[in-house]
């Protein structure tokens, strides 16, 4: 108990030294990019930047799938020469219902349904209702798989789009099932990024059906879409997609030779080129709409077959819009629409102010605690102070090792840990005092004091640990940083108090063999 083996002494010293070493990267400039350099990252609240929480619109995923499924159902039935009535989509129940023209055709209908393409195995099930209605229901398990894929894919697209804006060091992570967190250090005005992420950028090329002006509803197989070219006017555009934006290989901002305005050039892959060639060849004289997110950007009349696989989109763009549209087309369409549900932007000056205020408070608090300990606990108080300093160093070391992010609440957590760490030392010292009062010899008092206090320290720290682990699990954002700091702080507190400061006291006693203890 009172004897510390050399190896124990050395290992405690080694841990402290290692801690000090791990802290170094935080105060020294990184020498080369190739050297791993574990350091504490500053949170957005300390260095300025933007935090965006994006919500994935999952219901649109179901709706889109039902729509495309009902389109292929219609086509399959027609090409199999089967009739149908009342095709209806019910997004809430994730199902499509229709009735066969004649109940006797039911079996052939079901056969056609079997052959409908599925994007994932067992994507939907088919049931026949007593009234001969046939229902196609999307399977919830399969939808979950698709959702997961869609969110992963959305994260990929978001990353590509943000990288294209030249943002430095963006962090893009999934949160829960249907949220994406985007952190943009240094960008305190994320307007452009929000605009880019708020656009699905689903581009399609579809034929236009000319309607007499003022027709209120679209013919079957068509949808009325607003035109950005001529605000207020609607165009009947075929639901059938002739060329999909997926087949784009490149896009760039350019100028239109004829008008001198800005335009976006694009080129297609081989599949797209062939499709584009076929459609334009067969439909010379008709209008071909370029549809972006259910808005017609432009609907030029096809003059000749276009077989080169490239073209330009004019539209009323300015330089900025053209650049961004090209960026969006290059990065690809989002599989699901995203909306920003939370934004937090902090200017760099406020971040710098916060870190200064936090560091100052930390320093003053530290000094106050040191003075207090020295005044009230004398020599043992100083040992506690050494342990306190080691505690701070070790905390920084572990945070660096994890590459943790330090936030303002995290700094508060650090300060609080320092206060709590003192508690463990006070418990030990007070206990030794008590044992002395009971008439024990210095050695026996120290021994009993350490032993009894250790049990109490473990008990009290275990409760605090539990509370903060809960906070970490259920907390979000800054609260998590706070909980993490305290959880790490509890670990380092146990080390610095139960090993380091105790060892200092014991070593002092072993060296001087005093007849009374300075408590």
């Amino acid at each position, binding site marked *: 108990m009172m004897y510390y083996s050399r190896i124990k002494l050395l290992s405690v010293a080694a841990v402290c030294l290692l801690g000090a070493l791990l802290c170094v990267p935080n105060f020294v400039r990184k020498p080369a990019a190739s050297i791993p350099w574990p350091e504490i990252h500053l949170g957005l609240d300390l260095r300025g930047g933007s935090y965006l929480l994006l919500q994935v619109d999952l219901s649109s995923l179901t709706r889109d799938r039902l729509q495309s499924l009902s389109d292929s159902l219609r086509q399959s039935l027609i090409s199999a020469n089967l009739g149908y009535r009342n095709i209806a989509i019910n997004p809430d129940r994730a199902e499509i219902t229709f009735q066969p023209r004649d109940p006797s055709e039911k079996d052939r209908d079901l056969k056609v349904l079997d052959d409908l393409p599925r994007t994932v195995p067992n994507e939907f099930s088919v049931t026949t209702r007593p009234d001969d209605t046939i229902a196609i229901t999307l399977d919830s398990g399969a939808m979950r798989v698709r959702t997961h894929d869609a969110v992963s894919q959305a994260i990929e697209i978001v990353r590509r789009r943000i990288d294209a804006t030249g943002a430095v060091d963006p962090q893009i992570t999934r949160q829960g099932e249907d949220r994406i967190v985007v952190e943009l250090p240094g960008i*305190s*005005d994320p307007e452009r990024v929000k605009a880019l992420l*708020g656009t699905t950028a689903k581009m399609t090329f579809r034929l236009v059906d000319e309607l007499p002006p003022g027709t209120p509803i679209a013919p079957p197989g068509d949808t009325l879409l607003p035109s950005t070219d001529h605000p207020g006017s609607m165009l009947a555009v075929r639901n059938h997609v002739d060329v999909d934006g997926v087949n784009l290989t490149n896009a760039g901002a350019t100028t239109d030779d004829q008008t001198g305005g800005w335009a976006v050039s694009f080129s297609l892959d081989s599949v797209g080129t062939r499709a584009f060639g076929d459609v334009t060849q067969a439909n010379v004289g008709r209008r071909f709409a370029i549809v972006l997110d259910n808005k017609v950007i432009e609907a030029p009349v096809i003059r000749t077959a276009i077989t080169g696989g490239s073209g330009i989109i004019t539209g009323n763009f300015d330089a900025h819009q053209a650049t961004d549209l090209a960026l969006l087309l290059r990065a690809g369409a989002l599989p699901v629409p995203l909306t*920003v*549900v*939370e*934004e*937090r*932007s902090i*200017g760099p000056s*406020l971040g710098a102010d*916060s870190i200064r*205020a*936090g560091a100052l*408070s*930390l320093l*003053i*608090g530290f000094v*106050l*605690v040191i003075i*207090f*300990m*020295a*005044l*009230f606990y*004398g*020599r043992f108080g100083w040992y506690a102070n050494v342990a306190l300093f080691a505690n701070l160093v070790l905390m920084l070391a572990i945070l660096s090792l994890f590459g943790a992010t330090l936030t303002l*609440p995290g700094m*508060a*957590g650090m300060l*609080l840990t*320092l*206060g*709590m760490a*003192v*508690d463990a030392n*006070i418990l030990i010292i007070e206990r030794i005092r008590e044992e002395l*009062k009971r008439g024990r010899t210095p050695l026996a008092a120290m021994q009993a004091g350490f032993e*009894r206090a250790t*049990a*109490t320290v473990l*008990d*009290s*720290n*275990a*409760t*605090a640990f*539990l*509370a*903060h682990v*809960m*906070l970490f699990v*259920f907390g*979000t*954002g*800054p*609260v998590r940083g*706070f909980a993490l700091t305290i959880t790490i702080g509890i670990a380092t507190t146990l080390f610095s108090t139960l090993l380091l400061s105790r060892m200092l006291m014991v070593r002092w006693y072993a060296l001087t063999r005093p007849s009374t203890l*300075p*408590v």
Partner: protein
Amino acid sequence: MFGRPLLRFVRKDTHINFMRGRFAGLATSAVLSLASVILFFHPGLTLGLDFRGGIVVEAKTSGPADFGRIRTALTAHNIKTDGVQAFGGPDDVLIRLGANEQTNTNAVVDEVRHAIAEAQPGATIVRADAVGASVSSELFRNGLLALGISLLMILGYIWFRFEWEFALSAVVTLVLDLTKTVGFLVLTHFEFDLVMVAAILTILGYSTNDKVVVYDRIRENLRRYRTMPLRELLDLSINETLSRTLGTSTTVFLAALPLAFFGGASLSGFAWVMLFGIVVGTSSSIFIAAPLLLLLGEKRLRKDTRPAVKQEI
């Protein structure tokens, strides 16, 4: 300073009869907590952006801010604000907007940016926070969930390590502490947000820590003095740990104090609540937790001469 201590909290032995004031203590606590609960319902907490939803934009203008022009520009952009106000220096402007399900919160932030840029060229946006209504209610739910689960964990832990009387008195005391903190928040108008939830959880953690230390001593004394009446035993245990209790509270108080004064707008509220919680938590260990234990355990914990507490696990 490097040798013997220069100051002490309590002279040698104290024999304060804390349990004599137990009913006064419990009554005071009950009244304060009840008042806090009433304050919670009326006028209620000042909910921060996290839980209320909406938009807060903080701007710094070059030169003194012209609030009239900013208001005009905002109106010109069709932005309805809950308030355009000064805070801090003459060049600091704070604009608040309530949460609105209908409008796209984030487009509004950008509109506000534009409006400020028009009204006061050279102004910089220092901070812009927007929280959607659905997110805010979710954050609120998660915050309360974290609080509730922490309480349950603490209850379970103390039950496991001590006895159910200890666990129950601790958790009742914690709830009383918690309600008082809420009352404090209502009175001071500090905004209740995620950081405040962290503050409250910290108070809970700290207060529990304090109670566990006293309980530890009570348990030890229950074993040491087999025949001492519980009331005397509690007084003895509190007196024995008094010096430590005051020492620890003072250090934590000293550590949090600079944060309250110099921590800046975002942390000072947190720190003030902490300071309040330290005082409440320390006093409740003595005046509430121990008397409750006396009420609950007077019969059971001292029933016979068997060791009244489970052996160490």
